[in-house]
């Protein structure tokens, strides 16, 4: 229920952002649309902590800053590889283990890997991720497990659903 309400609020915010018209007619149509969508989403059973992860919001923002930096660095590295006359690529397939507790955490980790050029998650099975790396450097970077650690920190504890505020440098193994 909480998720449904927050989904409704988020969707209505999205509506306002998209619309930019604030007439009574459009606002009421917007509310009607949001209600309809929330109802359909409820019937589809897509509203839950996975489909609408509000509990991650704050730490996710911190994580994004780090990820953005990583993406830029990886981009530069891969761009250099592509533009080199003789492309120094060593495609490898490596397996990494995700230490996140929930599937949502695994998904965030997997998508972060894919989003960073040079590594693509090609298969995910529980907490085993199969990753295709373009260069040995990219593979090595991943092997250090820093991203894994950071994603684990983002992840809230699903049983309490109560984010732990000082978990940004926690050791996790």
């Amino acid at each position: 229920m909480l998720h449904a309400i927050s989904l409704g609020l988020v969707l209505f915010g999205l509506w306002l952002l998209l619309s930019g018209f604030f007439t009574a007619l459009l606002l009421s149509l917007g509310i009607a649309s949001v209600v309809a969508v929330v109802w359909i989403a409820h019937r589809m059973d897509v509203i839950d902590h996975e489909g609408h992860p509000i509990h991650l919001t704050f730490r996710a923002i911190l994580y994004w800053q780090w990820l953005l930096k990583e993406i830029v660095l990886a981009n530069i590295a891969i761009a250099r590889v592509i533009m080199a006359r003789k492309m120094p690529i060593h495609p490898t397939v490596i397996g990494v283990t995700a230490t996140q507790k929930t599937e949502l955490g695994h998904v965030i980790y997997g998508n972060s890997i894919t989003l960073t050029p040079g590594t693509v998650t090609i298969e995910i099975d529980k907490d085993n991720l199969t990753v295709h790396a373009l260069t040995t450097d990219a593979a090595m970077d991943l092997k250090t497990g820093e991203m894994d650690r950071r994603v684990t920190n983002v992840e809230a504890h699903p049983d309490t659903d109560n984010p732990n505020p000082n978990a940004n440098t926690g050791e996790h193994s």
Partner: protein
Amino acid sequence: MDIALEILSWGLLFVGSAFLVIGGIGVVRLPDVFTRMHGAGIIDTMGVGGVMSGLMIQAGFTIVTIKLALIIGFILYTSPTATHALARAALHGGVRPRGDETPEDESGQGNSSSKT
């Protein structure tokens, strides 16, 4: 507009376009489908991100900015999901990644479990 913002915006646009082209070259040059995904990844992240954020700064704070931000968010969100779907399909379709050093039984496993 602030001159610093102007420079920043053009810089972003330039970097974005450069990365778009580099990604495109990657898509053409790299040897197999898995490696090409990395090229496409460059387009989706740095290329789109650079050009779009350059445009955002140009637009100032209007509804255009918001919509551009939505587009960036949408692409950054969907790109890994789509890439993963494609990679999985390729893996299950029997494309072997080149330079497959560690012996992988992932695809064979996936096939056999689903055949039953």
